[in-house]
């Protein structure tokens, strides 16, 4: 080795890969969540929560604003059903509109009062957490939501009236509107009960009770649209229940006709 080369640093002929610095994770950025919106007063705020924030509505019902919330929900339930009933009845006459606008809120009230003990009973039987007051709030909010959706579909029935829909088309339209509102309400009922710890059996039981009582009570308080060939009356005098009537209709469809008997109250 010559003195000149001795001082030369040794340079490898093959490039040695320079190790990259170890991956250093970026420091975690603090998660900034928007603070929960405070519960604001006012009927519109309550309706806003009713439509799209059921947990905020539950918080309202548990807070010191529960009286105002219950009042708004009750008024919504009654007013929404009245509006929809009136738009059904207007197809026949103003009197039928007044009758139907009175009967539908009564049906909603009767159903709410009937379904609530069943929900409480099923939930307690399943030993699920919750309270009867909480269940009452849930049931009221579900009926208020259903009525609000019904009222929102009222323009469709008004359109049917203006377009001179016949009786059967109006019945089909009304059925579709009620089905939409009913499905939304049932879904909300299931969501609220599930978030409260109730299982599927409780939810199914509540839905069955609601369906059976709703169908029977609505049938008994008919008519809402009223056939053009019958006089306008608050409700039909015959006491035939839904299943008897279905049987009669099926028989009629098969060509077997029965003499219709009008059973007045008090003659049974």
């Amino acid at each position, binding site marked *: 080795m010559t003195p000149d080369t001795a001082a030369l640093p040794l340079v490898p002929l093959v490039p040695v890969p320079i190790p990259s610095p170890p991956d250093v994770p970026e420091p975690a950025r603090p998660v900034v969540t928007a603070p929960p919106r405070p519960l604001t007063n006012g009927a519109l705020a309550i309706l806003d929560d009713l439509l799209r924030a059921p947990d905020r509505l539950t918080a309202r019902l548990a807070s010191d604003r529960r009286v105002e919330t219950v009042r708004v929900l009750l008024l919504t339930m009654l007013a929404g059903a009245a509006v929809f009933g009136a738009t059904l009845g207007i197809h026949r006459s103003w009197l039928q509109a007044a009758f139907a606008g009175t009967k539908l809120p009564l049906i909603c009230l009767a159903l709410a009062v009937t379904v609530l003990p069943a929900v409480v009973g*099923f939930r*307690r*039987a399943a030993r699920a957490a919750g309270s009867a007051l909480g269940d009452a709030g849930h049931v009221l909010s579900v009926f208020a939501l259903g009525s609000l959706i019904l009222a929102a579909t009222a323009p469709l029935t008004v359109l049917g009236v203006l377009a001179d829909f016949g009786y059967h088309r109006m019945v089909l339209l009304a059925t579709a509107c009620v089905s939409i509102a009913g499905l939304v309400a049932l879904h909300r009922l299931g969501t609220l009960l599930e978030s409260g710890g109730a299982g599927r059996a409780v939810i199914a039981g509540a839905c069955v009770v609601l369906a059976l009582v709703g169908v029977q009570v609505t049938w008994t308080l008919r008519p809402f649209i009223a056939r053009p060939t019958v006089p306008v009356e608050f409700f039909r005098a015959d006491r035939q229940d839904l299943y008897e009537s279905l049987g009669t209709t099926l028989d009629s469809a098969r060509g077997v006709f029965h003499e219709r008997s009008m059973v007045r109250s008090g003659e049974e």
Partner: protein
Amino acid sequence: METMVEGRSEPAFDGTDVKEAALVLGGAAAAGAAIGFRGGVGDLLFTGAGLPLAVLGVAVLTVPSLCVALVASGIPGSARDVVRACVKAAGAGGRVLLGLAPALLVLGAVGTPESSRAYGCLALAAALGVSLVGARPVSEATPSARNIFIAWCAVTAGIAVLLATRVLFAA
């Protein structure tokens, strides 16, 4: 009534068991009254008293057999545990009947006496199902206990249906 267990005396049944028993009998009475009111005071009293008696009859007829069979099959618990579990499960059925009584009342008011009884049968079937499912944990110790429980459920359901229909459709 007390039993001696390892030198300690324990009450056979406590306040919770009494409450559960009261719930099942009260629920049956409320449901029976709601079913029978359409037929008048006589029907109301008949079904209002008859259904709790039917529930008591089912319990007296079937629960002792379950105790004997399960204990003989070698479950860890005692006959008292089986009875307490059955009482608790029956209490759940009573809660269901209490909750359904207003619905039965409304359906009776807007329907016919026959449809009222039909809805009553549905409500009783629901309560019976809840009670039988609620009693299931007592039998989960061994496979033979599970088989005994399934057989017991079938017999109990048959007795319950026969007794309930005699009460509901005899009025």
